[in-house]
C-alpha cells in the first residue's frame, strides 16, 4: 500500500494497550491533555473503526495506511509499529462535514464520501448518497 501521510503530519504514540504515551508538536493542543488515557475512552465509538487496523499493524509488523470516517471527519491515518507493541499514528484530515445547514451538509458529505474506498464503505456511500438525493429533492 502506498504511504502518503508524511512525517510532518500530527502524530501520537500509543503503547501496547492503546494508551496515549506520546504526542507530536502539531497534536499537542488536542492530545496533550490526554496523555496517559486509553484512546478509546477519549473518543467514544472509535474503537471498532480504528483498532482493527492498529492490531493488524502490530501483528504484521508492517506499517499501514487507511482512510476512515469518524466524528464528521475523514482522515487518512498511518499506523507505524514500533518495539514493544507501540504504534506511531500519523494522520491527515481530508474532509470535514459542515452540518450547519442542509445545503452545507449535502455538499460536504458528497465531497467527503469521495475519499472513502473499499466495498463496505462503497455500499455505505451509495446508501448515503441515495438518502441525500431524497433529502435534496424534499428541500428543493
Amino acid at each position, binding site marked *: 500500500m502506498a504511504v502518503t501521510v508524511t512525517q510532518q503530519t500530527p502524530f501520537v504514540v500509543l503503547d501496547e494497550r492503546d494508551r496515549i504515551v506520546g504526542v507530536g508538536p502539531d497534536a499537542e493542543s488536542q492530545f496533550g491533555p490526554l496523555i496517559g488515557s486509553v484512546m478509546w475512552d477519549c473518543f467514544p465509538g472509535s474503537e471498532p473503526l480504528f483498532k482493527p487496523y492498529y492490531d493488524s499493524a502490530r501483528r504484521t509488523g508492517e506499517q499501514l495506511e487507511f482512510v476512515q470516517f469518524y466524528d464528521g471527519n475523514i482522515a487518512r491515518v498511518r499506523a507505524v509499529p514500533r518495539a514493544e507493541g507501540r504504534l506511531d499514528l500519523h494522520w491527515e484530515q481530508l474532509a470535514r462535514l459542515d452540518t450547519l445547514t442542509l445545503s452545507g451538509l449535502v455538499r460536504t458529505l458528497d465531497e467527503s464520501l469521495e475519499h472513502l474506498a473499499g466495498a463496505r464503505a462503497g455500499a*455505505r456511500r451509495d446508501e448515503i448518497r441515495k438518502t441525500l438525493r431524497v433529502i435534496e429533492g424534499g428541500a428543493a
Partner: protein
Amino acid sequence: MSNAVEAPRGAAPDAYIVLDGDDRITHVSPHLHHDLGSWLGHVLWDHLPGAREVYGPCFDEARSSGQPVESVVYYSGRVKRLTVIPAADGLAVHVERLAELDVTSLGTLTRSLAQIEAALAGRASGRHDQPRRGSPRALP
C-alpha cells in the same frame, strides 16, 4: 408578563422563547432557562450563525399574516418542528426536536440520515400535528 404572551404559552406549553420585532429575546420560558437564560436581551442570530435564512422566513410569515406558522426545518445537525406564534408584544417560538444527525461513524450517519429524511418527509406531507412538549434543549 402580559396576556399577549400567555396565549402562546398555552399553545406551546413548555419550551419557548419570545422575540421582539428585532428578533431580540425578551422572554425565555422556565424549561429553557438553564440553556438559554443567558441569551435574554440578545438578538437570536448572534448566537445561531446561519440560522436566519432557516428560521427567518417563518418569523416573517407569522408577523405578516398574524397567524401561527408551523414548519419543519433543518439546522445544525437537527431537524426540528418550529412553531411560531405572533402576539401583541412578541413572537413566541417553540422548537421540538424531531431527528438528529449522528456523525460518529458511517453507520450512525447512515441511520440518522434516514431519520432526518423521514422527518423532512413529514414536512412535505402537509400534515401538522399539534405542538407537543418541546425538548428542554430545543435551541439551537
